[in-house]
């Protein structure tokens, strides 16, 4: 860490998001989520976006639709200075994200657990070994360095350190803060900065609008389940069962309460109550259906 206060003028904004627990075979659905949660607007302060994939089952197409445009926008500066952390404990998903990051040169960070500190997230993408090493040095130095500091830490020439840091900044992994020639430019790992400025950790990420109703498997699940299963190296039945079981585990208490009320209504032939229960999320479904056909 550089001596004194952080070189950043404002605290880093930490934005967490998690798609509702569901199976996502639909790219369009993911595009809507991305546009809603991460509109392409730049700010004059630094930001860290975190997408927690836990609880969701994403087709490769849906994952691409969510992650690639955000990664490209971050690299292109569309969000101003920002970093993207993706949380997934699933080996297949992690491998797919690594491949995506490599192919599309996306500056993203992967975290295995929603409970891990931000600074434990691992950078993936088109990083050379030297750049990866340099990034590790920035982390170990507290998240903020200068080129001369890295040169000292790595035992390399200052020019070489400048080249490595510039490459990391150009690729979107670190934020460069221009300073006077005497002070030298500072290079900031936004994840470390976010952790320090807002004591952030990837915890308590709540779904955007989760409810027991949202585990809806659309009609084209067959293809999606196959695709997800292929990526994860498991069979489609296991994927479906796992998705369903995970949903049940998360919502067991709520489902038991619902079940009690439904059974009471069935016993009493309470048609109005049953219809209200069956239809209670129709407005949301209708909104989705209508948005699907907007030209």
């Amino acid at each position, binding site marked *: 860490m550089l001596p004194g206060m952080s070189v950043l003028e404002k605290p880093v904004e930490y934005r967490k998001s998690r798609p509702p627990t569901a199976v996502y075979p639909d790219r369009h659905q993911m595009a809507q989520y991305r546009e809603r949660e991460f509109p392409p607007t730049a700010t004059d302060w630094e930001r860290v976006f975190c997408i927690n994939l836990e609880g969701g089952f994403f087709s490769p197409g849906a994952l691409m639709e969510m992650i690639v445009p955000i990664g490209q926008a971050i690299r292109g500066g569309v969000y101003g200075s920002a970093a993207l952390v993706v949380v997934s404990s699933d080996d297949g998903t992690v491998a797919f994200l690594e491949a995506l990051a490599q192919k599309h040169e996306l500056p993203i960070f992967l975290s295995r657990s929603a409970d891990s500190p931000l600074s434990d997230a691992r950078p993936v993408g088109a990083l050379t070994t030297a750049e990866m090493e340099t990034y590790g040095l920035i982390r170990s130095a507290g998240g903020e360095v200068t080129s001369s500091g890295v040169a000292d830490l790595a035992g390399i020439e200052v020019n070489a350190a400048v080249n490595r840091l510039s490459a990391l900044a150009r690729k979107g992994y670190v934020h460069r803060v221009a300073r006077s020639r005497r002070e030298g430019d500072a290079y900031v790992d936004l994840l470390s900065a976010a952790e320090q400025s807002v004591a952030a950790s990837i915890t308590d990420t709540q779904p955007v609008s989760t409810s027991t109703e949202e*585990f809806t498997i659309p009609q084209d699940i067959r293809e999606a389940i196959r695709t997800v299963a292929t990526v994860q190296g498991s069979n489609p039945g296991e994927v479906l069962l796992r998705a369903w079981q995970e949903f049940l585990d998360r919502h067991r208490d709520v489902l038991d309460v619902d079940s009690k009320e*439904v059974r009471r209504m*069935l016993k009493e032939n309470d048609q109005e109550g049953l219809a209200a229960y069956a239809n209670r999320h129709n407005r949301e479904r209708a909104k989705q259906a209508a948005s699907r056909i907007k030209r």
Partner: protein
Amino acid sequence: MNSRLPHRCHRGSCICGKYDLRITRRCLVSDLGFEASAPFDQCRSHPIVRAFENQRADEPIGTRTVGPAAGELTAYRLGHGHDHRGATWHDQTERVVWLCAYELHRSGEDDDAFPYFHELIGTGSLLPTEDDYTALFDDRGRRFTETLYEDAQQLLARARATPGVEQSGLLGGEETAAIVVEVVDTLQETYVAFSVLGMNATRVVMILGAFDVEAAFSHWELVTTLPTRPLRVDRGEICYRILRG
């Protein structure tokens, strides 16, 4: 003369084999002059609605388009005699054929229906709205709840009468379920399998409740197979089991 029996209607839907026929609210009120809450069978008094049922009940699309082909959003021409024209759209995702527009027709004259349809396409008001879908889902929810319990109990009675033999049937008019009852000494194992394609959790809670109104949801165990066959996972089929003394 068409001697075919009319299809069953329920609220705003005419129920065909694989989909419903419905009329968008805009068309119902503005083009046909009915109240927004008019049930489908009442609308049969209109010639284009009768044509809609006759021509679309078995074949969800026509042969001529209204406006340019637009993939899944292509609207099709519906005609009745010389004077009546409509535009329909097959919503495959929600399994509905919508009557989206109607106009009296004189080809090439001021009251040519097609410029009107094209105007609706141009202003984005031809296809169903969020309100139309809400009404669709509400009607289907009511249809489901009206017969669910009776359907489930009848299916269960059949399965109990033939232990070890798979019985299948329709629940609430929309969900097909397979059920097997196995008897071991004084215990009875009931397996219920159904597809979760397009289904949300409320439906699952209701289906299991309808089979056993005394059993809490957590008493049902999610299992990987029916005793009679593997699950059809490619169809999104899951299976629950419950053991009763």
